[in-house]
């Protein structure tokens, strides 16, 4: 893989922006390979949070005083930064939520209330629990029918099956852009176009793709797109639901409270315009502002170069892992992001994960909130490593040594 001095310097420069990466765990240098669970935060985001509470804290949208107006401006400017970055038609289509899970629940509750018995919702077999359970709840409440698009053994969606499942009763297709367990990048462009052809709306779970891909909502033409701030270098407790305004305008409010109303009386209450209609109560102000800063960080990156870097890491790690006896990589889609799930013979992922932790490696083990997918592969869980922009080939080399040591001890 590419190993020039200039290239290394550019990765080192990115690493230097993440203070957490220089710490020790169990006496060893931390190697953070759990980026699919959450990404680390650059100084700019951390300092933005600090500065907000030190110098700017006030409630927004309600005050005439200086601080309140400044906080409102900053919060709304963050919305603009994100909307522009994602190429949304208008910033009012960017709704701040608590995260991916919250966004999906909002749609299940609000858009879901417009569905009727017999209407069908399609999800794939590789969805995260947060894109399964809200639809199951809706199924039991409104009698809609939840149908599961099957996947192939290599972790790709079965597009033939998908095409056959689409019909005039299909009202929503909700699929993940990238599988958090397998790394598969789904052909969402085709999925969206095919769904629209039968009049269905499409929700894309962008939790995993937002960090790895330059998302262009206009080009994608999906109806909803959700993600979590914490997976894209921002804080926890904040996320985004994007929706096309013509659909969001038709949908009833999700939660009632302050900010989401135009006028309240006991006889009749009218609702605020987008995006406020879906943002009841005092929001996560600092979260929104810091997420804007995280998008500034994203903008500062050279996406092409970083994509190449992550692909190099993926390819190198897969090649080296495949040299280890009894390794089975789960998820071998042709189009993958830098996420690798694997098992070693009959060894339990929990045992390997524990021994890796003791050597300073942060990896994820278990079912990754995708139990139906584990059932599909007939395994209790996997060990998952997931790389981000700040990971290096050298870290992978150290990881391979640690992994071999763990396997030795356990065998």
């Amino acid at each position, binding site marked *: 893989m590419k190993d020039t001095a200039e290239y290394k310097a550019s990765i080192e420069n990115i690493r230097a922006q993440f203070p957490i990466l220089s710490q020790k765990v*169990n*006496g060893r240098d931390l190697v953070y390979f759990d980026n699919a669970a959450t990404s680390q935060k650059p100084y700019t985001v951390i300092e933005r949070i600090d500065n907000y509470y030190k110098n700017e804290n006030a409630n927004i949208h309600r005050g005439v005083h200086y601080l309140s107006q400044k906080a409102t401006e900053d919060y709304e400017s963050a919305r603009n930064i994100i909307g522009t970055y994602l190429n949304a038609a208008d910033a009012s289509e960017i709704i701040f939520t608590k995260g991916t899970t919250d966004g999906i629940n909002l749609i299940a509750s609000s858009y879901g209330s417009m569905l009727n018995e017999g209407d069908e919702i399609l999800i794939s077999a590789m969805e995260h629990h947060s894109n399964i359970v809200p639809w199951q709840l809706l199924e039991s409440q409104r009698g809609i029918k939840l149908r599961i698009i099957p996947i192939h053994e290599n972790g790709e969606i079965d597009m033939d099956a998908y095409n056959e499942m689409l019909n005039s009763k299909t009202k929503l297709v909700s699929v993940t852009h990238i599988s958090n367990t397998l790394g598969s990048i789904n052909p969402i462009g085709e999925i969206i176009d095919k769904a629209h052809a039968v009049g269905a709306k499409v929700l894309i779970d962008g939790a995993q793709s937002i960090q790895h891909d330059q998302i262009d909502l206009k080009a994608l033409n999906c109806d909803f797109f959700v993600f979590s701030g914490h997976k894209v270098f921002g804080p926890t407790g904040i996320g985004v639901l994007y929706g096309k305004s013509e659909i969001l305008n038709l949908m009833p409010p999700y939660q009632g409270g302050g900010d989401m109303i135009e006028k309240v009386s006991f006889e009749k209450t009218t609702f605020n315009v987008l995006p406020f209609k879906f943002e009841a109560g005092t929001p996560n102000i600092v979260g929104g502002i810091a997420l804007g800063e995280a998008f500034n960080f994203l903008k500062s990156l050279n996406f092409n170069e970083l994509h190449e870097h992550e692909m190099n890491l993926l390819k190198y790690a897969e090649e080296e892992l495949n040299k280890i006896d009894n390794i089975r990589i789960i998820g071998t889609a042709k189009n993958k992001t830098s996420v690798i799930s694997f098992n070693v013979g009959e060894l*339990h*992922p*929990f*045992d390997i*994960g*524990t*021994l890796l932790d*003791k*050597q300073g490696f942060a990896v994820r*083990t*278990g*079912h990754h909130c995708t139990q139906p997918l584990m059932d599909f592969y007939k395994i*209790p*869980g996997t060990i998952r490593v997931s790389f981000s922009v700040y990971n290096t080939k050298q870290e992978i080399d150290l990881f391979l040594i640690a992994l071999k*040591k763990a396997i030795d*001890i*356990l065998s």
Partner: protein
Amino acid sequence: MNYSEKQNSIIEDFSMFEDWMEKYEFIIELGKEVNLIPEQDKSDDLLIEGCQSRVWLKSEVNNGQMYYFADSDAIITKGIISLLIKVMNGETPSTIAKENLFFIEKIGLQEHLSPTRANGLLEMVKRMKMDAIKNI
């Protein structure tokens, strides 16, 4: 040895290890000597479902003393179970119910007893104590 002495002796065993890997190598060795439950006896009511590893637990009273049998699909979990069994086996129900269980924390393994139940161990310790209480 009484209940505390048994625990202190384990703490002493662990104090000899220089680093975490050595500690875990020892735990893994212990995992190989757990009083296993035969495969055909592993019914669902013995199962304690953790988020990551599963644990099976069975207890018996013999002459007023508790005896435990357990198994897990993860070997590290098994090793920790074997320590618990070493301490608890042969003790009276009231000792197990009332006396302090302190060695896990002292040897630095309390993370395995976190309430997120990654390995079902916290639930198992609770069940070991409940089984003892039922027999007081």
